[in-house]
């Protein structure tokens, strides 16, 4: 018995090693998410007792009970929904910031994809020297970090007098070249025979775009929409530079400013904030995977 087990181990060394590595990383990857979730179910006194020391040292705000040790708790002593209750019913500021996030992200996703689908059709359907140069410029722009693009964004926003308004976040987001690049890559693969057939049947450009191209790209549009959504749901840099008024900040920025007196609430807010993207993930994981794979461009 023992011997055969050993033999089995030897034969399946790859399987065992692989599973061990996968399990190890799975635990590391899930730990922060699970901890955030379980901690959101603790009462505020429990949180203060556990982590008081952490946040009393990082913040100057509110008075908290400070414990000498930091105990990382996985499971609350008593499951309590009081944090959620407070966030949802008693402290409207969090919901307000959550709403800010929604207000920024939804129009950006919708209009960036609208603008990008049109542009991608323009890029993929007709080519020319000028268009190639423009497309190349899009790629360079897409690769630039915020440190570079925020300066031009800020100058224009100031010029248009939209600094400190929502437009300063919306407009650069809507015209970001990211989705254009991906969709163009996708549309270039639509076989020309399909389009030629439509042309022979007398379809004009708009009909080819709306009746042939769009339906064929539905999957791609969905996956790019997910990528754009995550990017902006997570935004930090733009509001810091373009919105001086903290009231207008999205929850992604505001969450880090929760003061020591409210850290227990912070966990509940953190969970609420990650629910929309996680729901999208549950619903569209395959789409997302496809979108990412496509970005690498190896999918044939």
């Amino acid at each position, binding site marked *: 018995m023992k011997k055969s087990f050993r033999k089995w181990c030897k034969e399946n060394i790859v399987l065992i090693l692989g599973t061990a590595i996968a399990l190890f990383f799975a635990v590391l990857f899930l730990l922060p998410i699970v901890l955030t979730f379980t901690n959101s179910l603790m009462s505020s006194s429990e949180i203060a007792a556990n982590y008081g020391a952490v946040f009393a040292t990082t913040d100057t705000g509110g008075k908290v009970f400070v414990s000498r040790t930091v105990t*990382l708790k996985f499971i609350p002593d008593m499951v309590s929904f009081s944090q959620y209750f407070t966030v949802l019913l008693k402290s409207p500021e969090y919901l307000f910031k959550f709403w800010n996030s929604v207000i920024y992200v939804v129009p950006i996703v919708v209009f960036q994809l609208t603008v990008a689908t049109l542009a991608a059709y323009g890029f993929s359907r007709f080519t020319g020297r000028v268009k190639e140069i423009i497309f190349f410029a899009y790629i360079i722009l897409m690769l630039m970090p915020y440190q570079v693009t925020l300066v031009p964004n800020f100058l224009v926003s100031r010029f248009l007098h939209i600094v400190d308004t929502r437009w300063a976040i919306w407009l650069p987001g809507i015209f970001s070249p990211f989705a254009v690049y991906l969709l163009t890559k996708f549309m270039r693969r639509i076989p*020309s025979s399909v389009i030629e057939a439509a042309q022979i049947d007398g379809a004009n450009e708009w009909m080819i775009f709306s009746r042939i191209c769009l339906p064929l790209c539905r999957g791609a549009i969905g996956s790019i929409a997910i990528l754009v959504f995550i990017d902006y749901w997570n935004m930090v840099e733009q509001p*810091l530079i373009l919105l001086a008024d903290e009231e207008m900040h999205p929850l992604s920025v505001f969450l880090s400013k929760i003061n020591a007196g409210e850290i227990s609430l912070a966990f509940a807010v953190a969970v609420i904030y990650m629910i929309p993207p996680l729901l999208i993930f549950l619903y569209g994981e395959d789409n997302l995977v496809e979108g990412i794979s496509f970005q690498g461009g190896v999918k*044939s």
Partner: protein
Amino acid sequence: MKQLVIPFRKTEKQNKPHHADKRTGKQRAISWGFLAPSVAGVFLFFVAPFFVVIYYSLINNVVRREFVGLSNFIRTIENNAFKLAAVNTMKFSLIAVPLAVVLSLLLAIVLMSRIPMKSTFRSFFLSPLMVPVASVVLIWQILFNYNGLVNDIVAVFGVDKIDWLKSPHAQVAIILLFLWKNLGYNMILFMAALASVPQDLIEVAKLEGANDFQIFYIVKLRFISSTILFVTIMSLINSFKVFREIYLMTGDYPYDSLYMLQHFMNNTFQALDYQRLSAAAILMALVMIVIIAVLMKTEDKFEKDIEE
């Protein structure tokens, strides 16, 4: 077939639809109609102001507008905060990017091997991508606190307790957060690439007596070299975005070793020093372009190697 990474290259041209040649003047006009909203927006918000940025970087101030040559650039490069930020950002990228590439490749290989519950593991590895950084920052602060779990773990190896985020080792905490967030994304890219290695290529290698190890090193790695490049570029770009994580964890004034280029930009924004801001933005754009060009050149060489 290897339709790759940064387009505007030979492969893209082959993909050009044939019917494009037959375009008429009218069609040309229509195509610009499709492009107009995007091109106008990109021009207004990114391209045009960038010329203003270049202009600003060459004058002494917005009121007097005298050309001062490169002195703004020199002033920026010699600025201590800029130096610190540049060195820190470079250090971070030098460590984080190779780790992000190698570890995600490892995860991809593991998920491509015959282990149970592959799709579950894939979801697990991918989930951090969806979680907003702001949501896990609290946990990170707790883990890396002086009395936190990480110190308990390193204590097993006889290492003294430190307050991670306020120590010269602060970057460790951020690198781990960066990896946590980005490995899944890279892994998917690698999985797609590995799945596209043609089976007959592997068969041939087997016939020639290659073992699994050799197949991996000689056949697969070569075949996915363009993906390795793409992942490297994306990780590099993402590593420049790590300010987000640092800002959420430590606020406006982090420990010295965490002071990044975006912190420098934020502070310069607050000081409204447009000249320095512009010069810094241009310097960074140049560095990015050089890095990407070098990586692309390397990849071109690689591809030629394979063709030979």
